[in-house]
């Protein structure tokens, strides 16, 4: 695939992520902060999001396996996940966290379990999509091109 085609593919792919609700304008804000002084800013922030999310999803899974569920602690963890997903524009994950917090508040175990599965699913999707996008960007850079805005 030539450079122009790669760049076009990236633009189309990025557009689809917004159009399908995976990303929101916060991701655009993130990209606007990247410059020659911070050339890897977006990748760094998104990597932190991946680390945060995986740790929190792990902790939430363990919390829901306990005999006595600490809903307050779970709520704090979902709150963190909501904050970091909102900060990178991971729109679907963020929206599910709002629902998840409501179930934590209501001490609804079934609701929490269902939400956790949904969040894990959406997180898996956005992680794959962002990694694909970064790979595409790297291919463009390797081909000597620049990333289209």
């Amino acid at each position, binding site marked *: 695939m030539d450079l122009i085609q790669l760049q076009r593919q990236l633009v189309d792919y990025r557009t689809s992520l917004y159009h399908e609700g995976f990303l929101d304008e*916060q991701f655009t*804000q*993130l990209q*606007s*902060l990247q*410059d020659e002084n*911070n050339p890897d*800013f977006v990748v*760094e*922030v998104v990597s*932190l*999001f991946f680390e*945060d999310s995986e740790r929190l999803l792990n902790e939430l899974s363990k919390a829901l396996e306990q005999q006595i569920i600490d809903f307050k602690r779970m709520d*704090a963890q979902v*709150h*963190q996940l*909501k*904050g*970091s997903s*909102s*900060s*990178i524009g991971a729109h679907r994950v963020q929206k599910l966290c*709002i629902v998840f*917090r409501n179930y934590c508040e209501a001490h609804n175990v079934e609701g929490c379990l269902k939400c956790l599965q949904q969040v894990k699913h959406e997180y898996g999707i956005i992680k794959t999509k962002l990694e694909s996008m970064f790979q595409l960007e790297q291919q463009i850079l390797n081909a000597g091109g620049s990333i289209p805005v």
Partner: protein
Amino acid sequence: MSGNGASSSSLNMISGEDVVNNNLTALVVDDSPLLRLLHDIHLKKYGLKVQVAENGKVAVDLFHLGASFDLVLMDKEMPVMNGVEATKELRAMGVTSMIVGVTSKDGPGEQQAFMEAGLDYCFEKPLTPEIISILLEELNKHNKKD
């Protein structure tokens, strides 16, 4: 401008103006490494010198040690010492920095309780470039008056 509890709506909305200032210092207080990085880079783009703290106690300790900052971005929910407690403590110490609370988008009373601790402004996180511009305009005006 210290702990007068102004709401975000009382800011003059001067949008679209870039404010680059190499003399201002900021402290970003947040337990999330992601938010710390985000706000750190954001403020640095405007020329501020930025330090970060992972909770309210670290922030308060910095001030106890004699550090001073023009702007403090204070997350609300943090372990060890949360934003409300840290803000109250800083104001009780006589800190006159602009303290801006950053909260999540839930709880109607969330911002109000935080404001009452002594914030100058409170916004949803993460801060947008427009809000940061406006805050810096306010800081610059405040510094000119002194």
